[in-house]
Every structure is written in C-alpha cells, then in structure tokens.
C-alpha cells in the first residue's frame, strides 16, 4: 500500500465512494461519460482498489479522471453502495494537490475553471452570472441569449430580477461585508490555498509551454489554450 493510496483514503469521498467493487459494470452501462469518452468507471474503481501507487499515479496524471461529469448516476445503481463519481472527486483533488493535473490536456482545464468560477465566487458571491456567458465564447447559447446579453438591465427588470441592485431578489448585488465572510470561509477552510495551488502549478506549466498565464482572468494565451484545445484523442 503506497503513499498516494493512503492519501486517497484520507478523503471521505474515497471512503464513501469505494468500499469494494466486484466489477459488475452497472456504473459503466449507464455512465454518460463512458458513452462519449474513452472512459470506464468500473476500471477506475478496480485500479484504485488494487492500491498500487504506480497505477494510481498514472491515473492522476491522465485525462481519464477528468472525463466524468459528476452526474452521480452510478450511485443509484451500484449493488455494493459505491459511488464512482465521488471517488473521481477524491482523485481529482489529489491530482491537483500533487500538481499532476497539469500533465493532461483535460486536467490543465482546471486553470480556466479556477479563474472563471473561482474568481466569480470570491468577487461576486455567484458561481455563474449572465455577464460570464459571453456569446463569443458561447455560440451554442443562440441569438435569443445574445439579445438578452445585450439588454441585460431591461430584460432582467422585466422578469422581476433585482439586477445588480441592493436588497433581495435575483441577480442582486451581494454586499461587500457578505463577500468578506465568504472570503473568510475560503481562508479558514483551505479553499483559498487550494485556489493558490491550482494557480501555481498552472503557471509552472504555462512557463514550460512558453505561454503567458497572466495574473487574472482569461485574457491570456494559456487560458485560451486550455479552454479551447481539444486533441480529439479522447473518444
């Protein structure tokens, strides 16, 4: 039993997610990811329960662990009460803690997520806001969304939102003292450090790839690379 395996076992989601697997395949049978990626949750459970550090390290450095969509459909069906999706979350956490995530194309995408979602949480109190869904990056949102996006205050007002204003209501501005509480929670619980870790490992990788990662936001070459790069070798 190796060091990586032991660290995985410290994560509750590994303990809850994988008690013992008998390789029956019910998870893979209905997994949305197994259907469209070269991905088999059953094999991941089997690899982890073998407790072999070399294979686990390989897994942590691979694209494989980043294919899951965390829909947790696997949990409903498993006859052994496992949740491969939770195990994936533990693997991803460890991959980021070890800096292995930057070894894979799909893992490197964590940088873009950290920059967009992470910063949005800390600076606005929302994971997702209309302004983040820029039609240029979201052609699939279609022309109606483009119209909404170009007329946000008017449209939001019409449907009863409290767009960027104080007080309760949809899309209200979240007060600075609330944001400071959220930031405090991130500070105390290790959320802030984890963001920092993703930043640092990503910047190292960006340097290695001779791409600029900037200090903030998505207006840099490394962000574009991880946000749009698809080698097509995933299916």
């Amino acid at each position, binding site marked *: 039993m190796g060091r990586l395996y032991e660290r995985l076992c410290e994560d509750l989601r590994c303990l809850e997610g994988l008690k013992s697997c008998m390789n029956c395949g019910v998870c893979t049978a209905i997994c949305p990811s*197994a*259907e*469209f*990626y*070269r991905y088999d949750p059953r094999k991941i459970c089997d690899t982890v329960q073998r407790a072999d550090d070399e294979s686990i390290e390989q897994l942590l450095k691979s694209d494989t662990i980043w294919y899951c969509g965390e829909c947790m459909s696997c949990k409903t069906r498993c006859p052994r009460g496992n949740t491969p999706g939770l195990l994936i979350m533990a693997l991803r956490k460890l991959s980021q803690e070890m800096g292995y995530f930057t070894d894979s194309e799909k893992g490197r995408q964590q940088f873009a997520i950290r920059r967009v979602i992470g910063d949005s949480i800390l600076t606005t109190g929302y994971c997702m806001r209309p302004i983040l869904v820029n039609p240029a990056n979201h*052609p*699939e949102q279609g022309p109606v969304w483009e119209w909404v996006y170009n007329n946000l205050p008017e449209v939001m007002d019409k449907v009863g939102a409290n767009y960027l204003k104080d007080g309760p209501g949809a899309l209200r501005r979240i007060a600075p003292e609330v944001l400071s509480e959220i930031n405090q929670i991130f500070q105390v619980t290790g959320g802030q450090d984890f963001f920092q870790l993703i930043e640092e490992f990503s910047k190292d990788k960006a340097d290695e790839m001779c791409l600029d990662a900037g200090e903030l936001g998505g207006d840099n070459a490394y962000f574009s690379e991880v946000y*749009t790069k*698809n080698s097509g070798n995933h*299916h």
Partner: protein
Amino acid sequence: MSEWGFTVIQTNQSDMDQMDRGLIAKIGNAEPSIFWCIGCGSCSATCTAAQFNNFSPRRIIQAIRSGQVKDIMGEVNKCLLCGKCQLVCPRHVNTRNILLNVKQIMGQDAI
C-alpha cells in the same frame, strides 16, 4: 473543431442489435469451439504476441462473438500463430484456428 469549438461525438455504446453477425456465423460453422469461451483470459495471459503488443485473444473472441469486427484484421495480424492459447484453454477453444479462419474469411471477403 468547427466554428462552435466542439462537435457531436459518436457514441461508444455498442448497439448489439446492429452488430455484424456475418463473421460469427461463418466461424461458428468452421470452428464451433468459439462458442465455448468463458472469457477466463488464460489465452491472453500466455500469449506470445501479447508480450510485445497489446494483442488479446480473449478480447478478439469476445469481439467476434458480439459482432464488433470493423477493425478486426489489424488485431488478428498481431497474432504469431504459435498456438499456446490452445494449450492452456480450459474449454478447449481452438483460438489459433479461429484466427486462421478470420484471416481466410476476411481475405475472401476482400477479394
């Protein structure tokens, strides 16, 4: 990638009702022992070729039986025809002969 930045992905799910049953029908006649396989994997474990490439006789029998034979010749050609698979098989499956038959049938089809 398209102007969208992504595309529709083909499913990996095997639609077992749409599989090619032609090959298994022919091989089943020539070498019925293909139906006896229980997927134990002893053939793949002993396989000489598998030491050097990712060839797996167990997987190939499985593929023929379920009709997933689109790219099968590439796989079959990895086999060295040494016959060790046949020696270790607990069900007396003549894997070597199955592969020979695939070559023959697919070769014929090609002509």
